């Protein structure tokens, strides 16, 4: 039992100290005066004050959550402990908790809330595009919506699968009781929550006009809302770096005895390859944004061509991060899909080594393709054949993933459960996403498609059609394990079919609209595209409504119906399904031993689930 303390460290103290910290920083920042710095006293624009305020606000928030307690205690000579893990009850979800399962659920809810906000922005964007002329938002508000939608989604979804599911299940899958750095694990989550809140404050400072790419010089000249973008993405980058580092350290050092690399479930491989990208790419983002912040405050000229800098520098640095970033979004989805297909085909994963090669091949190649975003920018025109080749080469490892997915279906006994439907939809959506990507990788074709709705529809096919569908597959597959209660299957199937049809009805026509000449991020468009845009907008609203079906399912089945899921509702042979639902606080009583095969399906043609061999023989945890 814990001692009662006068002040508990939890979300409430975090928010209070965060707000106090923000205003202290705001005041401190206004004390900085130098003749060489621009101040806009008449407009109230003081970027220095805002950056300092964000910094002190985040520090206050983290101190209020209790992140300073342990370092201080260690400095005072107290012994090391993981006391934060011992807490019980609902309160542990509202503060610093080092239990990887609690962090997983925190991620699911916290990220889910911000993604919901990002989705609402998309609805507002599509509302404006019902008419080719001005309808609801002025230019600035429209661009702010576009920027908030893109930035929120790209920032939050980077951890959309690794946050909830890798944090929860990777330690279980490798037979560890915790992550390598449990406090850093909690820190990655709370940094994201601070970041999301900061991004929303852009609305209070006039929004920002640059979209999620933040190209300089536009981002240097933009108003104070831009600082919210910079602070958001830098914090997301920090969270990603730490998350990747933590995952790699965990998988490298904490695998159970006998669990060789070739015995890891493919989801762990998806996590490892994503973590490599996070660890190597996200620091580039942080440095780039630091340079941008200096350009905006201290008038350095990194991205100002008249001061010896170059806008190309920003574009290059951003995409050196940005292209691995889109694979940070794609790889976890591949891991999920290849994890789900064996379970619901009742077969081993087909071509395990090929799939791992595919994941690692994508990881390597994704660092070599970034200038395909700059094909018409005029930089390095003589290198375009190289970037065309390297971009098209990525379709080889991606093809490995496809052939492994297809091969797993071969001669299986396929059950079309809700998670399986989402996994199969991934195959279809990612196929279209990949094929449309070929047009963008080919320079002559890219001349038309670059910067158009075509490229926007392309990456929505890969990210929403890929990652988000895989995310929902994972939710339907693993949520019963995380909470102990089933999700309603009929509502789940309704959600799937509405979402799948509305998704394709939204982004399929957008490919055509892009081909017909509509640029991205415009508030007005040519009149002859109105009919198509109306169709897309209505489809997008239906797509948004499908999310409400999901929320209704979540609330109904987890709060009201509460049907116990049992330990293994899917007949899966993965280790987490050999444990009770929800997984007990200490995971295992004894570290389990693992067999040579993560997918020991097959050969059981008479017996049911009960007669199947489990993948592992974990010691039964005591109740």
């Amino acid at each position, binding site marked *: 039992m814990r001692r009662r303390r006068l002040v508990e460290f939890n979300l409430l103290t975090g928010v209070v100290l965060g707000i106090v910290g923000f205003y202290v920083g705001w005041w401190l920042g206004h004390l900085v005066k130098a003749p060489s710095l621009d101040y806009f006293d008449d407009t109230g624009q003081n970027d220095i004050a805002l950056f300092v305020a964000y910094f002190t606000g985040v520090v206050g928030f983290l101190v209020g959550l209790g992140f300073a307690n342990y370092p201080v205690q260690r400095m005072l000579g107290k012994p090391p402990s993981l006391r934060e893990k011992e807490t019980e009850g609902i309160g542990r979800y509202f503060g610093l908790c080092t239990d990887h399962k609690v962090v997983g659920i925190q991620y699911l809810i916290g990220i889910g809330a911000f993604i919901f906000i990002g989705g609402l922005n998309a609805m507002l964007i599509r509302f404006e595009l019902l008419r080719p002329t001005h309808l609801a938002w002025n230019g600035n508000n429209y661009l702010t919506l576009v920027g908030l939608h893109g930035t929120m989604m790209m920032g939050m979804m980077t951890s959309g699968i690794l946050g909830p599911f890798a944090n929860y299940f990777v330690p279980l899958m490798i037979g560890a009781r915790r992550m390598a750095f449990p406090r850093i694990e909690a820190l990655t989550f709370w940094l994201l929550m601070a970041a999301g809140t900061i991004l929303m404050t852009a609305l209070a400072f006039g929004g920002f*006009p640059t979209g999620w790419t933040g*190209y300089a010089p536009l981002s240097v000249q933009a108003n104070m809302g831009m600082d919210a973008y910079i602070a958001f993405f830098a914090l997301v980058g920090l969270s990603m770096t730490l998350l990747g580092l933590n995952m790699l350290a965990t998988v490298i050092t904490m695998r159970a005895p006998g669990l060789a690399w070739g015995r890891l479930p493919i989801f762990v491989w998806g996590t490892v390859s994503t973590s490599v990208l996070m660890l190597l790419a996200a620091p580039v983002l942080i440095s780039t944004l630091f340079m941008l912040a200096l350009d905006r405050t201290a008038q350095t000229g990194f991205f100002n061509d008249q001061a010896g800098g170059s806008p190309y520098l920003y574009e290059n640095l951003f995409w050196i991060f940005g292209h691995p970033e889109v694979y940070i979004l794609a790889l976890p989805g591949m891991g999920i899909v290849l994890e789900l297909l064996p379970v619901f085909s*009742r077969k081993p994963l087909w071509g395990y080594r090929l799939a791992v090669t595919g994941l690692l091949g994508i990881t390597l190649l994704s660092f070599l393709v970034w200038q395909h975003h700059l094909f018409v*920018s005029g930089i390095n025109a003589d290198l375009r054949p190289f970037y065309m080749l390297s971009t098209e080469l990525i379709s080889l490892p991606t*093809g490995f993933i496809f052939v492994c997915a*297809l091969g797993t279906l071969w001669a299986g006994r*396929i059950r079309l459960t809700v998670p399986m439907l989402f996994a199969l939809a991934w195959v279809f959506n990612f196929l279209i996403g990949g094929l449309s990507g070929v047009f963008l990788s080919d320079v002559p074709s*890219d001349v038309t498609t670059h910067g158009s709705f075509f490229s926007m529809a392309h990456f929505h096919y890969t990210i929403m059609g890929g990652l988000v569908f895989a995310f929902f597959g994972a939710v339907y597959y693993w949520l019963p394990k995380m909470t102990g209660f089933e999700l309603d299957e009929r509502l789940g199937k309704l959600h799937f079919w509405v979402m799948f049809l509305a998704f394709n009805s939204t982004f399929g026509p957008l490919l055509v609209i892009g081909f017909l*000449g509509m640029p991205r991020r415009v508030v007005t468009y040519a009149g002859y595209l109105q009919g198509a845009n109306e169709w897309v907008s209505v489809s997008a609203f239906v797509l948004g409504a499908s999310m409400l079906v999901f929320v209704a399912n979540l609330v109904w089945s987890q709060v009201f119906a509460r049907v116990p899921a049992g330990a293994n509702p899917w007949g899966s042979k993965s280790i987490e399904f050999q444990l009770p639902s929800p997984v007990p606080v200490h995971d295992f009583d004894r570290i389990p031993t693992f067999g040579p095969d993560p997918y020991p399906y097959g050969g059981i043609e008479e017996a049911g689930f009960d007669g199947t061999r489990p993948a592992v023989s974990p010691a039964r945890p005591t109740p």
Partner: protein
Amino acid sequence: MWSRRGHGWRIAALTTIGTAIVLPLVVFVLGPNMPPGKGTPVATSQVTDNTVLLVVMTPFTVFILVYLGYALTAFRAKPGEEGLDGAPLRGHFRSQVAWLASTTAAVLFLAIFGTTELLADNGAGGGAGPNPVTKPGGAPLPVQVIGQQWEFTYRYPTYGGVETATLVLPVGRKIAFHVTSLDAIHSFWAYELGVKADANPGVDNIAYVETKKISTFHVRCAELCGLWHGYMSDTGHVVSDADFASWIAARKRQFAPVMKYLPKYSSSYNPDPTFRAG
């Protein structure tokens, strides 16, 4: 249950039939309608390029869709089989090699084809930087495109550097667009010409095109450049030589009084914020 040979033959047959049906549709129906239309030789070869991409993709797409459809029909668990496993297959060397070989062949073909097209078309209408690798023969007419928030203006250096707000080009001429910007990054997108080139401050980004027929075309900004980006569009014209000569002469007369306020023609400009025209 596990006589899998029949499944393979059926999928192969369905893929072949499907490809045989879809491929002519792609070549003869979809292909000619691919963007950006056949307004210029560059645009025409982009249409060809898009068609070739579609042709290469078609067999793979048909195969994957046929396979998905077939697998979900033939390999569904029948009622009463829910607890049973499928065949314990862990891979098939020959089909993996076949897949790898066919995708590699397709990718290498696409890369080589794209490179050939890019070089043969002198950058294929895309911005090729200040020193394009390949240049068209003859003397193309230089037209400078200046992006600024939030409009494009056009300078004709061979006509005394006159600057206009509309883009007019003579027909049957090779054109060299010199694209630059005064502030943020813009992108000059002349859709029907098949031209797109980013306008970067301080950079002379060159894109080549040859006008073929008298027509109008749409010009848009394709790179987010701030508040009025969505309104940054206009219409350009390809006109006969005689019309162009009289148009440019009229513009020279019209703008003669204000020419002294324009900076001297240069490949890029450093706007002086303290300089006020007029």
